[in-house]
């Protein structure tokens, strides 16, 4: 029995955690991806290797890191390397299986915008910028994006391509392979790389997703439903969050 129903963000985070296979090398960004990767490590992927762009390799945080520079994260890592080494040898070197990224906007090909809303020179909203995302997107085996579904975020065309969503040369693999939202799961079409709705979270109607998506979203048939969140998943996630709050 789950004491309290999972929130949309919890469903999204747990869905992301389920994407990881045990032993995979995962590049973890700030925010919800951080929770997802650490949750996976406590669930069915204990052998996952967590890599943070701040320089921590094989991080084994005891509590959920609040930022990628968390002291606990550094202390318990297998190794710490400089930021240039991280980007050149570890990320650029092609050693990451899965990159978790967030986004402010995403388009049908998984292109990501974290730079500006509006015109670059005169933006309506100035976003933080690229960070490590462009090279993570270009170098990781596959990219999983975590993003709450809304018309503001799922747009026909991103205002700025900060990170590229699909292989430029049409090669297999790489780039945005899945988007986990609070409503369901989108995956890359093997045919042309366009994102398709492949599953809904329990209780979500397909219309909700289509209305929250700013382009005519393809629905892959048969459309699946994700496994309901288990009590174990939810309690582990909530325990993680408590540990994070307890440390601030």
């Amino acid at each position, binding site marked *: 029995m789950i004491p309290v129903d999972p929130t949309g963000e919890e469903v999204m985070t747990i869905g992301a955690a389920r994407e990881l296979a045990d032993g995979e090398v995962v590049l973890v960004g*700030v*925010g919800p991806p951080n929770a997802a990767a650490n949750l996976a490590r406590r669930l069915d992927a204990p052998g996952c290797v967590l890599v943070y*762009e*701040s*320089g*921590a390799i094989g991080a084994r945080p005891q509590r959920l890191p*609040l*930022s*990628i*520079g*968390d*002291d606990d994260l*550094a*202390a318990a890592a297998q*190794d*710490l390397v*400089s*930021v*240039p080494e991280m*980007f*050149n040898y570890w*990320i*650029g070197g092609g050693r990451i299986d899965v990159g978790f990224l967030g986004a402010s906007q995403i388009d049908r090909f998984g292109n990501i915008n974290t*730079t500006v809303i509006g015109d*670059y020179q005169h*933006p*309506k*909203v*100035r976003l*933080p*910028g*690229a*960070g*490590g*995302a*462009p*090279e993570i997107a*270009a*170098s990781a085996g596959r990219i999983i994006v975590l993003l709450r579904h809304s018309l503001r975020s799922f747009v026909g065309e991103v205002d*700025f*391509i*900060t*990170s*590229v969503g699909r292989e*430029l040369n049409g090669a297999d693999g790489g780039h945005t392979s899945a988007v986990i939202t609070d409503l369901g799961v989108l995956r890359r079409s093997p045919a042309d790389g366009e994102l398709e709705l492949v599953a809904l979270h329990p209780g979500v109607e397909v219309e909700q997703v289509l209305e929250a998506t700013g382009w005519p979203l393809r629905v892959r048939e048969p459309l699946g439903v994700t496994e309901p969140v288990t009590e174990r998943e939810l309690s582990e996630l909530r325990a993680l969050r408590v540990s994070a709050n307890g440390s*601030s």
Partner: protein
Amino acid sequence: MNKAGQIQPLSEAVGSLVKDGSFVALEGFTHLIPFAAGHELLRQGRTDLTVVRLTPDVLFDQMIGLGRVARVVFSYGGNPGVGSLHRFRDAVEHGWPREIELREHSHAGLANAYVAGASHLPFAVLRGYAGTNLPEHSEDIAFINCPFTDERLSAVRAINPDVAIIHAQQADAQGNVQLWGLTGVQKEAVLAARHAIVTVEEVVDELTPRPRAIVLPNWVLDAVCHVPNGAWPSYAADFSVRDNGFYEEWDAISRDRDRFTQWMEDNVLNVTPAVAR
């Protein structure tokens, strides 16, 4: 070249090395951020600065909000774990208190620009940037072909700041410096810059090599300054912890122009820093 960096007061180091219009790196990637040195620079009235850092956070927000910054070179401008940098956004979105010019990179691009600077090379090569809109808004990103495979790769222009300022855990009496934990791009920033200032948590007789440390010998430094807690609200591993509460508080302080200005006057500009550290 032996710069023979000496231990000296922070006010003297900043006063002699940072000028109006200087190109200043204040580095620290989520750790060891040189807040105290940045504040000293503000107290001394320095302005029209070009500042560079991969992750401008609260410190750059403060400098920008006071109108001291003409140009920011950066790759990720957010308040980590909290959200927006409101002063940075206000300057970019509304030009308050002045317009600022952005020179924008990815982390990989800016880190490699420091690497090139430290290596006395005019540029560095990397994958990345291809297909993004970043190159079209930058004079510091170009594309080149591999002379062996003809593959197209990106190039970033080297960065060589006038002054690099960092915070570290330890110096010895001769001004040799050791820092450890997440050391970011600090070695590259110091070696890429013409001058370097390091603030340290403590001065010891002799440095004992530590795990996961980098060493900056005094002959690549211009000044070493004893400034305990000089990274607050950031932290120095084994000396302090990150003041996450302050980073959250900053969100409210910095949302409002007047509250921000008053806070800076009360807490930075009109404050006498602890002396004789």
